[in-house]
Structure formats: structure tokens, C-alpha cells
């Protein structure tokens, strides 16, 4: 597949702060690519560098094989959906959507047709003559999307576009965005700090931390095979086993991570072949609706989180287990080895 965006050795320093630090990245044509990370991890800066709003300190940016590193934003074949939507308040919805075409001197009839088309894509037919202040947040978000899509850019850049919407609307828009992307076939580069959003929509995800990519992988791989404790902690939640504890339980100093839903809470050791069991005391039981989360303090030292689906009425049993002795059991092949211990990387719990 052809490469839409290719970034080599890209750095952006703001004084002492290295917002982006020596980044290499290739994004394929037609891909839904997400950049995920906590705030300040550099993901938005990368997006702004691709759009041309910032000039890199070092490195090159190629768009469809062309070097655009020194080009101003208006000379790059990319369009951006801004976090605050940046709808022009003095123009109607139609004038907003037509703005890019008008600036490029597209004739009136074609302009109108393409604007109608773009508004239909985002399901805003009949809103063309409205003023931006008459629209809801979700509708404004759609106008911003239509205004960018109407130009048929090579690449669409989206800077946390769903951040300002409420949860229900956000879930709907996630699915819709993915559909739109499939229909128009444009490369989407999507910036978010919401791991669920990234997992739902993306073909590939780059997890950012301190100006660098911590891991670049498909959603499944990212979740099932996190490459570092940071990724394991940022994408979903996970239990970390390392050092003496890991040596005692697993027979290897690790470090290892394991997802809470891969752990089982039992009354006694089932002695499964290829299984590992550790005794402990349930310290906390948290009911989450679809699932229940139990926090178990292992006799070996660390505290682990165990999650299980509430597919029966076992919640009562789970709650009764508080302060009871239990055995936590898991399959050895569900452990993800993070290789040699890395003291610099620490998992950071930031789930949206």
C-alpha cells in the first residue's frame, strides 16, 4: 500500500521542552491511524507539524511522496478538524463548508454541489442556511468535518474532535466517523487521549509518551501484547508482576503484565496444567454494572485487580468475598513479558 505520510527524524522543541523527539513514522494510504497518549505526550504537536501550523526543529515530513516540511498550511493537501471546531461564526453552515472551495476559486455551481454532498455525508442536509450559533455541539462537529472533507484532501487530521461531546454522542460519532472514513477512503490521522476511542476506530495506533512513540501496533496487538509497562497501563488497565514476586510466582524476574479479565478468583487452587495460582485476601469489590472488579492483596506482596463479567448473579458471591482468603489463578501464556526491566518506564493510570 502506498504511503500517505512519511515522517523522518521529526523533532519539535519549545525551549527546553522536547515536545516531539526524533520521530519516525509511516502512515499508509486509506488508513485510520490514531495517535494516543496522555496530555503533553506530543501527539497534538505531531498533528500540528503535519498540518503546517508549527515548524519542526529538525526532521522531514513527506506527504504522498512530496517533501512539505517547509510549506505553509495552505500549500499542503491536508485538512484539519479542530478540537474547538473553529467554525467561522460570521458565516452560515454552507459558507463555512464552501470556504475551502471558494478560496481555491472553484466555480459556484460545483461549489454548491460539493457542499451539499459533504453536508449529506455528515447527515446535515437542511442545515445549510443555519448560523453556527444555532447548532448543537455535535452538529458543529459535523460541520467541521464536512468543511474539511469537501476539499477531498489526501489526509484528514482530527485533533480530539470528539472530546467536547457527551459520552453517548461520542460513541455514536465514533462509529459514524469510522463509516465515513471507509466510504470516502481518505487517510485519517486521529489524535485522542481516550484509549477506548482509539481501540474502537483505528487500523493502527501509535501510543505516545514524552515526545516518542512507545508502541505502534493494531488495536488487538496493542491490548494483548503491550510492549512496555507504560502502554500496558495506558491502554486498558493491567497488573504488573516484577522482581522477586515474578521470580517466585513465574520463575522469571520479568517484568510481566496481565490483564485483569485474564485472572480468575477461586476458592482454592485448581492445579491447572500450565496455570499459576497465588493466594491472597480480597480487599475491595467494585461493582461496575457489566463487570465486577475485585482488588486482591497477594500474600506474595503486590495487589492485583481481577475483573469478571456479571453474566450471572455472582455479584452477591463476589461482594461476600470481601476480606476473605481467595486464590487468584491464571494461564501462564496470558502473561505478557516486557523483556528486561526498565526502571524509567512506569505505568500510568489514566483511563477516560
Amino acid at each position, binding site marked *: 500500500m502506498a504511503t500517505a505520510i512519511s515522517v523522518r527524524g521529526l523533532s519539535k522543541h519549545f525551549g527546553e521542552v522536547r515536545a516531539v523527539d526524533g520521530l519516525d513514522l509511516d502512515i499508509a494510504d486509506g488508513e485510520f491511524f490514531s495517535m494516543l497518549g496522555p496530555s503533553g505526550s506530543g501527539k497534538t504537536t505531531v498533528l500540528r507539524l503535519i*498540518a*503546517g*501550523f508549527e515548524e519542526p526543529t529538525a526532521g522531514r515530513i513527506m506527504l504522498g511522496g512530496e517533501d512539505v516540511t517547509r510549506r*505553509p*498550511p*495552505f500549500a499542503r493537501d*491536508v*485538512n*484539519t478538524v*479542530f*478540537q*474547538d471546531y*473553529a467554525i*467561522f*461564526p*460570521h458565516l452560515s453552515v454552507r459558507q463555512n463548508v464552501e*470556504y*475551502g472551495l471558494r*478560496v*481555491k476559486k472553484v466555480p459556484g455551481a460545483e461549489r454548491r454541489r460539493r457542499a451539499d454532498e459533504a453536508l449529506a455525508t455528515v447527515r446535515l442536509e437542511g442545515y445549510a442556511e443555519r448560523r453556527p450559533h444555532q447548532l448543537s455541539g455535535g452538529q458543529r462537529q459535523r460541520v467541521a468535518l464536512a*468543511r*474539511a472533507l469537501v*476539499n477531498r484532501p489526501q489526509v484528514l487530521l482530527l485533533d480530539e474532535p470528539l472530546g467536547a461531546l457527551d459520552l453517548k454522542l461520542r460513541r455514536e460519532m465514533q462509529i459514524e466517523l469510522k463509516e465515513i472514513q471507509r466510504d470516502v477512503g481518505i487517510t485519517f490521522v486521529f489524535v485522542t487521549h481516550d484509549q477506548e476511542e482509539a481501540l474502537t476506530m483505528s487500523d493502527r495506533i501509535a501510543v505516545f509518551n514524552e515526545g516518542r512513540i512507545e508502541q505502534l501496533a493494531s488495536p488487538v496487538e496493542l491490548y494483548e501484547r503491550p510492549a512496555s509497562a507504560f502502554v500496558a497501563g495506558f491502554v486498558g488497565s493491567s497488573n504488573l508482576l516484577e522482581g522477586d514476586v515474578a521470580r517466585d510466582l513465574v520463575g522469571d524476574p520479568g517484568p510481566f503484565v496481565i490483564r485483569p479479565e485474564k485472572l480468575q478468583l477461586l476458592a482454592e487452587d485448581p492445579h491447572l496444567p500450565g496455570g499459576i495460582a497465588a493466594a491472597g485476601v480480597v480487599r475491595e469489590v467494585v461493582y461496575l454494572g457489566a463487570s465486577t472488579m475485585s482488588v486482591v492483596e497477594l500474600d506474595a506482596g503486590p495487589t492485583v485487580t481481577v475483573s469478571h463479567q456479571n453474566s450471572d448473579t455472582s455479584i452477591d458471591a463476589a461482594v461476600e468475598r470481601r476480606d476473605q482468603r481467595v486464590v487468584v489463578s491464571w494461564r501462564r501464556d496470558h502473561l505478557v513479558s516486557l523483556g528486561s526491566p526498565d526502571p524509567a518506564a512506569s505505568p500510568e493510570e489514566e483511563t477516560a
Partner: protein
Amino acid sequence: MSLIDRRPGLRVGLLLTPPMLWLGVAYLGALAALLIASLWTQNDFTGTIERSWTLENFKTLFTVEVYRTITLRTIGIAALVTVVDAVLAFPIALYMAKVASPRMQRILVISVLTPLWASYLVKAYAWRGMLSADGPIAWVAAPFGLHTPGYGLPAVTITLAYLWLPYMILPVYAGLERLPDSLFEASADLGAGAWTTLRRVVVPMAFPAIVAGSIFTFSLSMGDYIAVKIVGGTSQLLGNVVYDNQGAANNLPFAAAVATVPIVVMLAYLAAVRRTGALENL
């Protein structure tokens, strides 16, 4: 609990009464007195004011050629001063709001405000010196074969535009500063160069703020008479007519009638700009 604590309405009433009295009596009352006085007349022989109702003053104002000329000249000068100020203020305000560093921004705001601390008279006389036959402007212009504009209406326009410039810069600056940077970025992102962004996004969005500033520059120019006296040579504006009539001629009713003209013009102007949304920008 005292009465004042139990009755929030009373508390608000007590709080607002003095300023409302000031606004009602001192401010609007004075204007009303002016309008009433304009309907009186002056005895030509004794010079005393006769308190009988008449429209004679307004008739004189509209029929005598010289007053019509002065009225149109005053509106023209006020409009010109406003345009000059808008053209000068916009780039300065844009630089202050969107380009300058925060430190530079503070320095510029202070330097725009500083001239307001100096006395009006000092500034007007400074321009008298600037424009004099052997002043700095004559000196700079001489090598190019040019002259100082001297004293007259051009000098009045220059001086008034100088005096009121801060009143234009500040609202335009405030208006531009409110615009999020993402609007500029969105325009560039959609393919617009700097000039197109300026024309299609920045100026239309700053327009209400420019109109807000114009309310100051226009009304201040409409009522001015000192700058004209100092740098205007023999030219007269409405302000001078008011001043001469209530001073030298002691014809207060006619002075009052003349003074209503700028008020009416300003009301018409305000009514016109209300539609642009500029009044929300003040």
C-alpha cells in the same frame, strides 16, 4: 436579622439609587435642559433669554447657508477622522492581539494608553508646533519639495485622528484578542493565504469592534472645538458655533440648538450601527 438583610430588593435599590440619580438627573437632565433651551429665544436688543416656545433657532440653523456648510463639514471631518483611525488602528491592534509576545503586548497596551494621560491641550499645542511653518514636518518635508499642510482642515483631521486613535485601537484590539487562533489556522488549513484570511475572516470578524471604536472617534470629533481653534486656522466646526454663541454672543438658545445637531447625528449613527452587533462590543 436586620431589614436590609431580609429584603434583597431593598439592598439592590439602595446600592443603585445614587448612580441612577447621577445618570438621571445630572446626565440626562442636563441634556433635557439643553433641548428645552434650544426651543427658547433671545431678545435681539436686550440679549436676555425669553422663555417662550419657538422653533426659530432650528429654522435659522437649517436655512442659513453657513450653518449647513459647517454641519456638513463637521460630519465630513468626523467621518474622515474615523476612517483614518480605523486604517491606522487595525494593523496595530492586529499586531498587538495576535503577533506580539505577551511582554510586547503589555508594552504596546501601555504605550497606547500613555498619551491619554497627557493633557488634551498639550497634545493639541504639540501638533500646532509640529505643523508650524518652521516645525518638524516642514523640516522633514522640505528636502522632498513639500510643505507642511499648515493650519486648516487637514491639520484638524490630523490632530483629531491623533487624539482619538487610542479609542479606536483598544476596542479593535479587544475584539481581535477574543478571536481564537484556531480560526486563523482553519482558514490557512482550508487553503487561504494570509491576505485572503485577512479579507474573509479577520476583517469581517473585527468589523463590529471597528464600529465600536468608530462610535468614540466619530462622536468625539463631532463635538470638538478646541483642536479647531488651535490648528484649524479660520475654519469653523459645529463646536465653535456652539462656543461662540454661548460665549461671545451669549445666545444660549441658539447654542443649544446647534448642540443638538451632533446629538441627533450620533443617535442616527448609533441606530445604524446597532444592526452590526457593534453595541455588544463596547
